[in-house]
């Protein structure tokens, strides 16, 4: 799995890493049953805090993406594969929506901001409930 993190961005490293592991699964760079590197190995490879990696594994386990077998490492779960298929299907929806937006002469950056704002709006609405 090739991971590229940007420590200087405003996005916490653990969120960046979670996204990238999920992305690697979606693109099948890693597959169900594959083992992820140990916390220590991952921390040393990426030169980031081991507690950050540990947090990523905890959250991925909580989200049902990986299974941590005690003393034996972390493995990508089978059930994730169906999410992968779903994501592929959703890809088509996104493609169509972006085509539509581009036809309105919006720039890439504007599209991104629109999507992020919409998501943020929904998040703040659901938090209030």
């Amino acid at each position, binding site marked *: 799995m090739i991971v590229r993190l940007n420590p*200087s961005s405003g996005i916490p490293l653990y969120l960046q890493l979670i996204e990238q592991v999920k992305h690697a699964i979606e693109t099948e760079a890693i597959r169900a049953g594959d083992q992820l590197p140990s916390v220590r190995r991952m921390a040393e490879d990426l030169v980031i805090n081991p507690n950050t990696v540990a947090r990523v594994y905890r959250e991925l386990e909580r989200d049902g993406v990986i299974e941590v077998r005690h003393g034996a490492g972390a493995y990508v779960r089978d059930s994730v594969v169906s999410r992968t298929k779903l994501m592929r299907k959703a890809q088509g929806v996104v493609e169509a929506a972006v085509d539509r937006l581009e036809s309105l002469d919006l720039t890439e950056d504007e599209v991104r901001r629109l999507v992020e704002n919409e998501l943020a709006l929904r998040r703040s609405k659901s938090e209030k409930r």
Partner: protein
Amino acid sequence: MEWVIETQDLRKTFGKQSAVDGLNLRVPRGSIYGFLGKNGAGKTTTIELLLNIVRPSGGRASVFGIPVTDLARSTEIRQRVGFVSEDKGLYPYMTVGQMIRFTRPFFPGWRDDLERRYLELFNLPLKKKVGDLSKGMGSKLMLLLAVARGADLLILDEPTDGLDPAAVEEVLRELVSLAALNGTTIFFSSHQLPEVEQIAEHVCIIDRGKAVVAGALDELKAQYQRIQVVVDRELDEPVRWVDGVVKVRQEGRMFSLLVSRNVEAILAQIRSLPGASTEQFPVSLKEIFLESVRTN
């Protein structure tokens, strides 16, 4: 939670000059803690207080729960703390090998395995005089001496200062690996934001002897946001922002807010402005740093 380093209202004045001015620090066991500040912000003086190299003018500091001014127990602290300073504290007339052999007997917990590992890793020339080492090599030797004593806590004053980028990465990787392998607590000062962001779990930004921002880095990045607001028409009176707005810039109908907490209330306040549209952006440590330390 046990704090490896704890200070309360720690103060140090030199004459009328206040170097450390009511500093509160809490460093959790096993963490990598980045201590940030501009040159002259009080970083080195704080470290000297922790090591009891200078005596506090007020307040308290403890390491492993032992007050640093408790001379009867100072050896206990010294055995468990490895220290790398800006001005090295090596003997220039000794060779690297002599320096290691000289240091070893002071520490009963000396780790031969770590000594060998770092000699090899850092490519340190045993027969070379310490005084003839480059700045980078000197730092690496200091790091070796600090690590090999089997310290539970490393206090590092600008550990990567004067190193080339490749050597910086090497040192950072070793620090990460030490924390992962041995659970060593690492407290390091730096004015290099990128390296702090890369490996630190907790950070404290010190300015004029005071902690201006402190906390878990992930939490800080989650809490701090930049909110940009555009209103319909010029406002008649200035907005009295609610708590949590750290900084406001205004240009005509556009506001740029730096927010440290209380985001919901701030967004509610924005919605009360005429025809306001908002956008939220994540904030980097660099922005937090620049907005928190005063420039003169």
